[in-house]
């Protein structure tokens, strides 16, 4: 579904991605592991059209995506749940969801209203908080709002950047159940996550990004079987 | 040297103090629209010292600088923790407060046959210490130039010291510098006091040169101009604001043939300059290159 080939992205003089290739297959959860500063967020922002790749190609459903502007990327069915959630703090929960549907708000108002009801059915807590400013929500509620907001654009590919960051273990579990549920409904997921053990538990395929390059990829069991990786990222003692 | 040239140079010198004052605050990351208030406080205090109490010229000017410095310290009690747009607006409000307060400031005492002293909206006239003391305009101009040079040297040395390092750190990131042990509030408070004193020094010199000062001299335009000078001349060195003043007043004069279009041309030049060099002519990179050139020349 998503094919990233030899993508190079740089900020000024610094090369953040030095030729990254990966594939996210339709209907699967693909996760990207790696240490801080490896370029995971940069990769997601490049796919999302916020950053422009210097070279390489990104194709989505067989069509080239590299160089497409962010509005068009969203329009083509890719949404990103950003790191630290980035909800609109002074807007209400309902307004946040409307903002998520921005690209189709002009032509499909009725569909957006229907999706809003569907979102409230899926996340009852958001319905309770509908009129509340998003900045007053708890971390877990904000994460749910961020996911719901991204879904309002009706994505086929959902990208998530560190959804577990700063959340209590129970809440994290809940979020991951939601992600797994969305995946079962047919949404392809590209997941960046520090919590490697949890990420591997729901992923079909995993990539390891180190210093702007893919260092390893394989199925979750292949990753766990690799001694160096499990020692570094899963905290399993070798030997 | 013609009288006209002398008065031009004095004007450049006097405004250089206000520009340096705004520059010091820029170093700690504060944008002030209110340095004109300290200029006027310094002017009134210096005038009162010499014209009302017969203090010698030099003492009077010192009194002006100290008074404005104290005012800066007092203001810092409230404004030191404030940053960003709030500092800009708070300093603007302070500048206007001083202006409006001076409109009803009456303090006249008989000196000889006349009443002298601040007279509300009519201002403070008859500050004649420069002329009764027999100082020629040229000598005064040279004294002002000397003071500007000394101030420049002092600030340049300060910025190279540990204190200057702390000031720059506060300007970059207050939270980070606090976590590294910089006393942010103290740095901000002392800088505000110092900046106030500098502007007050300018005010003391000004009032004695033109013999009067009025509330209208606490004009927002003076404050914003002095802020703009650093961005014209360059933020990389305290020489920047001085160059900014010289360019502004110098250029304005050379644009005189353009009569009514002066500000339009000058404003356009500043806008263009900011696009090409957003941190002024002598920005940090230019200063670094120049100093390497000088070091190479010395070898």
């Amino acid at each position, binding site marked *: 579904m998503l094919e990233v080939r030899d993508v190079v992205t740089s900020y000024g003089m610094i090369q953040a991605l030095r030729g990254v290739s990966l594939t996210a297959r339709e209907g699967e959860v693909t996760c990207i592991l790696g240490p801080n500063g490896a370029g995971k967020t940069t990769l997601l922002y490049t796919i999302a059209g916020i950053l422009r790749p210097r070279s390489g190609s990104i194709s989505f459903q067989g069509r080239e995506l590299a160089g497409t502007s962010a509005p068009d990327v969203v329009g083509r069915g890719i949404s*990103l749940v950003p790191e630290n959630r980035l909800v*609109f703090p002074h807007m209400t929960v309902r307004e946040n969801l409307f903002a998520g549907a921005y690209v189709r708000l002009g032509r499909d108002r009725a569909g957006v209203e229907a999706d809003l009801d569907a979102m409230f059915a899926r996340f009852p807590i958001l319905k309770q908080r509908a009129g509340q400013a998003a900045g007053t929500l708890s971390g877990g509620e904000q994460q749910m709002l961020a996911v719901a907001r991204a879904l309002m*654009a009706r994505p086929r590919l959902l990208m998530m950047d560190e959804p577990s960051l700063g959340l209590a273990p129970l809440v994290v579990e809940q979020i991951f159940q939601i992600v797994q549920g969305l995946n079962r409904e047919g949404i392809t997921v590209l997941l960046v996550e520090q919590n490697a053990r949890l990420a591997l538990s729901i992923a079909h395929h995993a990539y390891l990004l180190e210093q702007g390059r893919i260092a390893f990829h394989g199925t979750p069991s292949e990753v766990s079987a690799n001694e160096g990786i499990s020692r570094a990222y899963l905290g399993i003692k070798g030997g | 040297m013609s009288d006209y040239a002398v008065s031009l140079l004095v004007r450049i010198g006097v405004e250089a103090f206000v520009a340096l004052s705004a520059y010091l605050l820029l170093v700690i990351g504060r944008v002030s629209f209110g340095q004109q208030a300290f200029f006027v406080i310094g002017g009134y205090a210096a005038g009162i010292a010499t014209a009302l109490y017969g203090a010698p010229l030099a003492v009077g000017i010192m009194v002006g600088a100290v008074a404005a410095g104290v005012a800066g310290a007092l203001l810092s009690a409230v404004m030191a923790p*404030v940053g960003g747009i709030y500092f800009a607006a708070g300093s603007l409000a302070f500048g206007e407060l001083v202006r409006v307060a001076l409109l009803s400031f009456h303090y006249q005492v008989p000196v000889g046959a006349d009443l002298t002293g601040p007279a509300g909206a009519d201002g403070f006239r008859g500050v004649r210490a420069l002329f009764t003391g027999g100082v020629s305009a040229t000598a005064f101009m040279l004294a002002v130039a000397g003071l500007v040079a000394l101030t420049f040297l002092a600030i340049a040395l300060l910025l190279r010291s540990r204190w200057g390092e702390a000031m720059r750190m506060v300007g970059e990131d207050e939270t980070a510098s606090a976590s590294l042990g910089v006393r942010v509030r103290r740095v901000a408070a002392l800088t505000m006091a110092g900046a106030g004193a500098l502007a007050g020094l300018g005010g003391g010199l000004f009032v004695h040169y033109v013999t009067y000062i009025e509330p209208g001299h606490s004009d927002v335009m003076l404050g914003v101009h002095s802020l703009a000078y650093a*961005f014209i001349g360059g933020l990389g060195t305290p020489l920047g604001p001085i160059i900014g003043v010289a360019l502004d007043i110098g250029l304005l004069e050379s644009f005189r043939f353009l009569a009514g279009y002066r500000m339009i041309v000058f404003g356009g030049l*500043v806008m263009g300059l900011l696009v090409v060099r957003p*941190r002024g002519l002598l920005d940090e990179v230019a200063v670094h290159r120049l100093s390497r050139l000088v070091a190479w020349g010395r070898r």
Partner: protein
Amino acid sequence: MVDFLQALVDGVMLGATYSLLGLGFTLIFGVLRRLNLAFGPTILVGIYAGSHVGLAWPGALWAVVAATVVAAILCGIYVERCSFRALARQAPVVSMISTFAVWMQLQELVSLFEASRTMPYPSPAWLPALTVGPILLRSDALLMWSGATAIMLALFVLLYRTRFGTAVRAVADSSEAAALMGVNVSIIGAAAFLLASTVGGLAGVLIAQSQQQVTPYFGLWATVKGLTAMLLGGAGSLPGAVAGGVILGVVETQTLWHFGGQWRDLASFALLFLVIALSPRARSEPTL
């Protein structure tokens, strides 16, 4: 008591135009995170254009309004191009200094065309004044208030009920997240600027018809009032700017009635200063 009520009513009427100026400031600052010091001077140019049209075609009020708003919008586009778009990659303070340079240009432009310094501005004098009990409602003040209120209502419908408004507020809240939702941030920024200039031009019409004459100091005056209204309301909040404007208007008219003209400005600046000195937000949010 009647004095107090009269001053209160006058203050609310005056404050409505301050609210408009504050909203113009808030739209630009909220969306672009940059201060436009030239906001007042752009309105000044609009008013001068309107004044000239009014002198050339006496009685053509609509032409006066149109000239004022169009000139303000053109100046706004100029500011947006030169001080915001051209400097989008620079620190916000650089934009602010640049708007100051534009200010000097606009001020000079006005005095170039207008040697006499004071310009008359037409006012619909045929409107009757109202008296409600002991309270007198001057016709120009009434027009100022109802005009400003109508504009604010329209503006709030636009910002809170339309797709465009959602985008504007989303960018103001978090431009990064808005971009991820597919909002074209730079287009929304330019549109917010145009909207602010339009609001500013309309505010200029309302204020000028009430004062019936305008001097070049109007630029500084309008910038200070707008900035104050915005900051009183908490810098970036749209309802806050409305409240800030009304508070400023009421404080001004109350001090004017009870203490006299010279205290009016003192009170408004003291209010601004106190709000900044006491506001916890000012101490935690370096935004420039």
